[in-house]
């Protein structure tokens, strides 16, 4: 299990580096799927099989499906790739290296061993619908709000569109918004 953890961690780090360095968007997204699968293996080796399954189903399945659909909808592959000059990487890399060193120093090499044995779906569900049931309700409201918001933002604007300003004195449109004031 220990070797499995380190191999999966190495795969996750390499795949994530490839995500942010590929200029082809589809390749970057596929490397992101590899990275998420590797993190799922890490979860499994940490004794969290339920979360590992959810990582595969929700992250690698649903969320990456959204990304791939957005890429296909927008036909982004036809664009010229947005090249970043190499000099643009230097500043963030230096600052982030300092930040990472501070994080590792702050974590400290104290060598606490993890708890042996796994925490299965039964215990997670008992906690989720016991003390955390309010959080579940809030998450459901958040998802509903995101659904409505995404539907509203992505829908085509009716004429006149959002891009050109509405002429003054225009009759209010049928969308029942703020009463004709564009």
């Amino acid at each position: 299990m220990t070797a499995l953890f380190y191999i999966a961690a190495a795969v996750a780090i390499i795949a994530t580096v490839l995500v942010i360095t590929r200029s082809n968007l589809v390749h970057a997204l596929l490397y992101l799927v590899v990275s998420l699968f590797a993190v799922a293996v890490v979860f499994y080796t940490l004794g969290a099989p339920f979360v590992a399954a959810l990582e595969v189903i929700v992250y690698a399945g649903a969320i990456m499906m959204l990304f791939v659909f957005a890429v296909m909808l927008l036909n982004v592959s036809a664009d010229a790739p947005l090249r970043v000059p190499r000099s643009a990487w230097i500043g963030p890399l230096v600052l982030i290296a300092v930040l990472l060193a501070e994080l590792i120093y702050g974590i400290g090499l104290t060598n606490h061993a993890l708890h042996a044995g796994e925490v299965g779906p039964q215990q997670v569900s008992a906690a989720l619908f016991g003390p955390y049931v309010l959080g579940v309700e809030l998450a459901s409201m958040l998802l509903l709000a995101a659904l409505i918001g995404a539907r509203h933002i992505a829908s085509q604007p009716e004429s006149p569109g959002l891009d050109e300003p509405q002429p003054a004195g225009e009759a209010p449109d049928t969308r029942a918004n703020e009463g004709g004031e564009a």
Partner: protein
Amino acid sequence: MAAVSLDHGLILAAILFVIGFVGLLTRRNLIVALACIEIMLNAAGLAFVVAGARWGSADGQVMFLFVLAMAAAEVAVGLALAIRFRQSLGRLDVDDADEMKG
């Protein structure tokens, strides 16, 4: 199974978070920026799960589920914004976002 130390899990989470942060700072494509935010959220969730595994507690996994729900909500709204952005500007360059003005 207990031989993995807490620090190594947390360091893995820190490295993944930092890689996502570098990508967010340097890449100009809006969809890659959203993917980098996903990487950072996933790393934060990994830190929760590692900390929960330290004491054999389910709380870390519960927090990961909340992070997961929030990531799904965030990516839905973010990709909807990307679609509108592309329809109105014709590109996906985050540097063009200063032209939106409402």
